[in-house]
């Protein structure tokens, strides 16, 4: 199973800032091993962040997103102690969901 994400959510003046670090190789499908064999494409395709059942960000990724993808965004609302959840799926159908508690 895929490694957990690191998610940090902090609320300030009614706006919640979310920072996400996903753990994923994000292989382009163009990289070659030392022996010349091509490493197959393997990358996160979709990411979704939710707060209280409401989608606060949706992303689609291609191969150009860096290894261990990082995201930062902000949404209106959120209070300390509440949860933000993030899910991703990759082109092999693997997925991962994690959540974080909003800090003040």
């Amino acid at each position, binding site marked *: *199973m895929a490694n*957990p*994400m*690191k*998610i*940090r959510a902090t609320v300030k003046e009614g*706006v919640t800032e979310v920072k996400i670090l996903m753990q994923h190789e*994000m292989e*382009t499908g*163009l*990289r*070659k091993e030392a022996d010349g064999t091509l490493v197959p494409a393997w990358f996160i*395709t*979709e990411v*979704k962040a*939710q707060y209280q*059942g*409401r*989608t*606060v*960000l*949706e*992303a*689609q*990724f*291609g*191969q*150009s*997103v*860096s*290894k261990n*993808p*990082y*995201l*930062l*965004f*902000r*949404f*209106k*609302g959120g209070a300390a102690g509440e949860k933000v*959840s993030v*899910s991703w*799926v990759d082109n092999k159908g693997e*997925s*991962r*969901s*994690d959540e*974080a*508690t909003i800090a003040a």
Partner: protein
Amino acid sequence: MSNEVDLGRRKALQSGGGMSLLALFGGLSLLRSGDVLAEWNKAAFSSKAVDEAFGSMGATNPENNAALIQLTVPEIAENGAVVPVTVSSSLPNVEQIAILVDKNPSVLAASFTIPQGTEAMVTTRVKMGQTANVVALVKSNGKFYRMAKEVKVTAGGCGG
């Protein structure tokens, strides 16, 4: 914060296999529940040219607008594997933000759907094979706008 994450993981592990299964299914349903995810735009992500990608996103000839789109990228990237990109916009009702790299084999890096209540701002990191333009595409009130900045790459980030 990493402590918190670790703790949560430990708890999940301690509560045994049944719990992890539940967590797994919970995760799957999270992705599927609620509003349907827009299907991954294969045509746009396979595009070899910026205009082609724009076309696949329904953004033919977006208006160049450097005043209303803020694109923050380094002038010089020593490591093309990790180039930080921030796009924000003062345009009203921003629904979508996309980030492209015009000289990468597949030009579209990421596309974000911005729901109401989420700020028109996103930061991520992209790979750049060589010196190229990073292009930001912003959809506001159904209309597309663009803005580009060159990033000089001293070491490409696509392996090989």
